[in-house]
């Protein structure tokens, strides 16, 4: 027993010492030099990338960046795209890092308006491709994808029912109780689908459309994974609903193990295009490194890796798309579109109206 006590006592002592040293440090902090600006961990030769939880690149790719430039990359991630943007806004006086990746077109205006990013024009070969997705000076498009209604082919074949093809089909009583979508307030694909309907039905028509969806037995799940893996019949869990809001890139993952055709497909007339951007953070300690990193994100190496690791299409037209994507994950030719500035201006109103209409 005494042994145990001494362990407790020792631990307490150590913690006390730690606290004491912290306190000592604090008292020694005579006014920090504002001219020194940020300081922090950004040692020369390192760059901090602030991104969301879905950011991923294959093993070793960031090491290649270090090998090429001598700059090491520290990745800091938290939350989803929305949380990311809002955290960047909150911390813009003392930024969390040098570069950011993962701001999408639904949040782009907020980031630019709040001055989170500083203008940068990449000189990478793919920059011209990226420029086609431009939303403003501070953000460089890196990848994009379509959020579309997906259907379970197998289910419709079995039921001998024609598959829906358009947004309007979804309100058809033949498809009653078959659709599940993620919540527009809590899920970014959910919001993207709301934008698709706003793009399709106009600022004053979308509420009526959702009323009709609701009348036709719409189910709202919390997030994408919830809708896809629990409610959707084609997501591997044999859920009850054969129509789900997902991505254009989802069908390839339903190709059976032995090969063959995907058992699900995306309805390309129901899509909204999501584009993800990178940018140099205002107040970055290593803006030059951040710029290099953005160039690197547009390099063929990263661009080619994006479909496999982030399930998005690369902006670069120079890299090859995986074969099963070519076959089962084509992009929409004319996705619905909403102006980013309008999104920024109306996001709260739209979501409040949507909640009112759909959730009640």
């Amino acid at each position, binding site marked *: 027993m005494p042994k145990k006590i001494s362990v407790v006592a020792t631990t307490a002592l150590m913690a006390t010492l730690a606290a004491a040293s*912290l306190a000592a440090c604090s008292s020694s902090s005579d006014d*920090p030099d504002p001219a020194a600006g940020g300081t922090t961990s950004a040692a020369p030769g390192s760059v901090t990338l602030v991104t969301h939880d879905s950011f991923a690149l294959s093993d070793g790719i960031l090491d290649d960046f270090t090998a090429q430039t001598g700059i090491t990359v520290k990745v800091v991630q938290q939350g989803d795209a929305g949380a990311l943007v809002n955290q960047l806004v909150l911390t813009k006086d003392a930024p969390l890092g040098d570069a950011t990746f993962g701001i999408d077109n639904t949040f782009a205006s907020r980031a630019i308006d709040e001055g989170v990013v500083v203008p940068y024009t990449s000189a990478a070969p793919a920059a011209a491709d990226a420029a086609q997705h431009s939303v403003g000076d501070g953000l460089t498009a890196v990848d994009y994808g379509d959020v579309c209604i997906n259907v379970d082919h197998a289910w419709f074949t079995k039921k001998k029912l024609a598959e829906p093809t358009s947004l309007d089909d979804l309100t058809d009583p033949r498809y009653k109780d078959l659709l599940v979508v993620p919540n527009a307030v809590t899920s970014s694909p959910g919001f993207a689908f709301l934008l698709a309907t706003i793009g399709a039905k106009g600022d004053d028509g979308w509420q009526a459309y959702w009323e009709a969806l609701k009348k036709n037995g719409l189910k709202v799940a919390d997030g994408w994974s919830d809708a896809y893996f629990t409610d959707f019949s084609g997501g591997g869990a044999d859920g009850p609903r054969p129509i789900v809001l997902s991505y254009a890139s989802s069908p390839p993952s339903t190709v059976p193990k032995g090969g063959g055709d995907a058992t699900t497909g995306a309805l390309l007339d129901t899509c909204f295009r999501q584009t993800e951007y990178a940018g140099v953070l205002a107040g970055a300690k290593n803006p030059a490194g951040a710029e290099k990193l953005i160039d690197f994100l547009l390099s063929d190496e990263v661009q080619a890796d994006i479909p496999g690791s982030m399930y998005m299409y690369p902006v670069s037209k120079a890299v090859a798309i995986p074969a099963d994507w070519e076959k089962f994950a084509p992009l929409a030719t004319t996705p619905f579109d909403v102006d980013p500035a309008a999104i920024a201006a109306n996001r709260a109103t739209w979501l409040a109206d949507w909640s009112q209409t759909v959730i*009640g």
Partner: protein
Amino acid sequence: MSAPTLTRPAPAAAPSGAPVRGRRGGLAWFWVVAVALPLVFLGLFFAWPVVAMISRGFVVDGSLDLSGFADVFSRPRTWRIVGLTILQATVATTIAVLLGVPGAYVLYRRRWRGRAFVRALVTVPFVLPTVVVGVAFRSLLVSGGPLGFLHLDGTLVAIIAALVFFDYAVVVRGVGGMWERLDPRAEQAARALGASPWRAFRTVTLPALTPAIASSASLVFLFCATAFGTVLVLGGLQFGTIETEIWVQTTQFLDLRAAAVLSVVQLVIVGAALSLAGRARSRRERALALSSSASSVRPLTLRRAPGTPPRDGHGLALAAAGVTALVVVLLCLPLVNLVVRSLHVGDGWGLDHYAALGSTSGGMTVSVWTATLTSLRTALVATVLALVVGGLVALVVSRRPRAVAGRRAVAGLDALFMLPLGVSAVTVGFGFLLSMHEPFGLPIDLRTSGVLVPIAQAVVAVPLVVRTVLPVLRAIDPRLKQAAATLGASPGRVLRSVDLALATRSIGLAVGFAFAASLGEFGATSFLARPDDPTLPVLIFRLIGRPGPDSYGMALAASVVLAVLTAGIVAACERLRAPGSGGDW
């Protein structure tokens, strides 16, 4: 006694009459540190971030603006979510207590084969990431699922069931830890006075357990009132609580004003609940006669033990066992569902998802095993922090100062350290971003350094440690300490050789609880900016959100790993509880 031949020893051993100030000074220092260290910890890593975040919502252009209150309170939605928050938390807490008390009896007061396993098993839900539980739960309840016929999907009932699922273990462990060592003689005395087994339980045992029940109930209430993922996944926003609303306002709308108002409302509700529980506790909390569990724990048999008369409480024990068995089966349903689904590969079955856990393919930055190590390391640091801070708090709060002001201060300290459980993880997480950039001018950006992860987990684990250790410390008969003092033990030695020695017996429980909570912590962790070495729950969350072919199966497999890991650690800590021999606790 033998012949009184002993001679009086030299009186040199008798101390002089003059007090020795130096040693008392040392003890005074200890108490200063014991109060100051936790306060500094809480102030730095909880109060400061929260105040920083909330004040962002109330300070507009440098001046205080409280118009947010009028605005937010004029929305009918606000009142609905406040009502829903209280309703969900109250109902779930009540059910958790009603089910948890029999569970505590069966799992801690009775002995039977497999008890250790079941004890660990019921703790598993407590640490599973909400998103995993959401999936496991919803796929049971969704129409066409095994329990689809109940039509519970998307209902309030489903949310409450999930909240109970999460927090059942809190009641069982909290109450069981006390019950195990409750002297059975008081109940026996009541029986001898003509009380039926039920009446004896109701009038003697239950009042004695009240502090532990109130303690656990307040924990459960806080967990429920701040439940976030569960509510969203199972009910969606129509059953939104203050917590989900803060999340929406902060992460989606960046409406810091509304979020700040809601944070204050949350604090008020949590504060009210805490003071209510504190009152229930202090009315009952006093020196309880504790005995060794060896003497009070009896075997559980299905048939009445030979020689016991009928109506001697066997029915009551069986009823408790029945309820507990049912609860355990219900707890197992989502867990089994999880395991089954993790073995589902394509159209068949296999261990493929488990085999893939070591890989970093498909754009995963680290393998599940790496994340597991990260989780273990982080949880270890968090547990040590929580034990030191929580242990000190429990020690301070267990004092009974004579002065009324002193007693109030102690009670206030107790409630203060419960607050982290009742304050939104979003507020804390975002608050860290505002406060931890070069704190005190230190030239480090704590926000992205990664040290905040174990600290944030420790802040949440501290209340669990306090709630586990405190009832034991408070139940120590003050005369035991007086006896030690009259034997010449200095207050410091009394503290060590009585308070700490007895509290150490509950430390296994506290360690298990704190470790489990840290291991499964997701809320605060997920809102921290953190370097790219995700903990297991964070990795699971990432996996489940990826559209890739096998990532969903891997997420489920990783969840099973997390569950098994937790159960194993909790079981190991249970063993730690009974060190040495001699029929002690």
